[in-house]
């Protein structure tokens, strides 16, 4: 038997929470079409929210206020625009304002390849507002760490998931190379692509480092990684969301501040995602990451669409 995949880990954590810890899981159409990509167990504590997301989020937050530590499932991150009001303006604020926590675990699921509808990646918005922890786990171990962080804290946890990682069985290690030509720091599912890109470039004798970023807020870097990044000629941050005011930009700024260097970013273009090629505007894949890296190395920083 190989390692269990991420979906199974999520399901197991959820089952334990619902069956043994008086937890709740709330969301819309939970039992429909494969129980949220096979991440939700069929057990007690599941609550359907058949309504506008604004109200559903408020109900979930209400259960958090009274200590049920709800898991709130958002099948597509685009819905966060509706859910957001209750999460941002209430759940995330009440601890600081009133010392009355509303610990809610928000499973916000990103997806790709479905065109203009439901394919946004919006974790950056939740990094912007005070009061959230924002993690983007794509491995089983990271998910367990995310859950433990939630259970040991009273802040709402924005858990930015990506559908394309649910079958992932691997843990993903950093690749740290001193004096690299470039260090690629990647977020969420783009980590799988960046890892691939770096491996390909190694094959072409380009010295690259690869750094996993899974805790977006609070954001920190281990000293050894800071040293690697410092010794690297260029740095690139890759994310699933839009580049403009996105997570990559925010983290590039944080890294740049630490090492006093310009940091490049790559994300989704400032255009609507569409259904057919060439307008899909998907999250950066390994090919796109390689092109970007080659251009950075060549000194051509401006090109957006190679």
């Amino acid at each position: 038997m190989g390692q269990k995949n991420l979906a199974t880990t999520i399901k197991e954590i959820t089952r334990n929470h619902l069956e043994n810890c008086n937890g709740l899981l709330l969301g819309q159409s939970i039992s429909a079409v494969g129980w949220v990509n096979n991440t939700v167990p069929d057990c007690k504590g599941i609550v359907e929210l058949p309504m506008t997301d604004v109200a559903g989020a408020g109900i979930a937050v209400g259960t958090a206020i009274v200590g049920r530590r709800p898991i709130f499932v958002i099948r597509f991150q685009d819905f966060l625009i509706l859910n957001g009001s209750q999460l941002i303006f209430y759940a995330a604020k009440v601890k600081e304002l009133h010392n009355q926590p509303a610990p809610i675990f928000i499973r916000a699921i990103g997806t790709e390849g479905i065109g203009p509808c439901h394919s946004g990646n919006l974790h950056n918005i939740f990094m912007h507002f005070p009061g959230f922890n924002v993690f983007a786990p794509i491995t089983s171990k990271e998910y367990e760490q995310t859950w433990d962080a939630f259970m040991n804290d009273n802040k709402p946890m924005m858990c930015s998931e990506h559908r394309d990682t649910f079958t992932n069985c691997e843990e993903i290690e950093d690749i740290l190379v001193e004096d690299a030509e470039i260090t690629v720091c990647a977020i969420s599912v783009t980590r799988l692509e960046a890892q691939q890109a770096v491996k390909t470039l190694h094959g072409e004798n380009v010295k690259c480092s690869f750094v996993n970023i899974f805790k977006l807020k609070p954001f920190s870097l281990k000293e050894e990684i800071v040293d690697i990044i410092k010794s690297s000629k260029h740095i690139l941050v890759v994310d699933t969301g839009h580049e403009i005011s996105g997570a990559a930009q925010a983290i590039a700024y944080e890294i740049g501040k630490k090492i006093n260097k310009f940091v490049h970013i790559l994300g989704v273009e400032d255009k609507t995602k569409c259904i057919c090629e060439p307008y899909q505007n998907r999250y950066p894949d390994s090919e796109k990451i390689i092109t970007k890296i080659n251009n950075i190395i060549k000194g051509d920083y401006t090109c957006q669409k190679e």
Partner: protein
Amino acid sequence: MRLSNFGVLEEAINNIDNTIKLNIYKKMYRSRKFEEGVIESVECKQIKSAVYLSIGQESIAAAIIEALGNKHYVFTQHRCHSTFLSLGGNILKIRDELLGLPTGSSNGKGGSNCLQIHENGINMFGHHGFIGENLPQAVGACFGSNKPTLCFLGDGAIEEDYIYPSIGFAVTHKLPIIIICEDNDLSILTKTEDRRSWDVSEVMKSFGIPSVNMADDPWSIYEKISGLFANTDGPIFLNIKTCRIKWHAGIGADKMHEWDRFSIVKEELLSLGLGSQLTVIEEEVNKEMDIVWDKKTLQQLLKK
């Protein structure tokens, strides 16, 4: 035309014990006097942040909390001073919150429309500025705890889209929640007739919720709520027509209110021969307010 006797139960005042009547009067008088102190403090710029005054609407919280006690989860709207005081919230904490002091109910961080109480077995949750947001939260808290819950909101808030699905959820899950619409006919300064043609109570009927639509006569509210509660196992809705005497925010007045329930109640109690009891209550409350709003104390507090 809105009338002060709309839907009122004529006999209610006679059915209620004098002790209860006087308790309700005391809650109303205390809220009124407290807010008169607020007005003075705003005038002399000791309170600098916006205040949302309950003046004119005091009978609603007074009657409901007299009838139900203070053991519910309570979710208030932004206009919540009278609810805070009727529930038995610490009067110095509300004063200090309005003054922006660390000794306030939220350490001075929230202000008039974000008051909370979480002590002495009372749980009143602070509002955060999105009108009606407290209803889904109240429904969730009620669902998550199965504890009786009260939710106050305004006639403007009740027009928000998240209200009705939350009520639907409360009906579906038979939640013990009482939803109270403090219907002052105003959303900021826009009258209901300029906003909508439909009636909230009619919508509630379609949900199958026991609902009441009447003016803010505290005796009727007291009697209705006691009776209704005994006979249902799901949500209850009260639309209480009332008058906001002061501005939406701030201490000014447009003199648009059709009645002042406080004056009506006082007249009623006087005509029942309860004058000497009212005097005792008033003297006691006045003494309390002299201490709460003592100018020198306030100056010292604000200097710190």
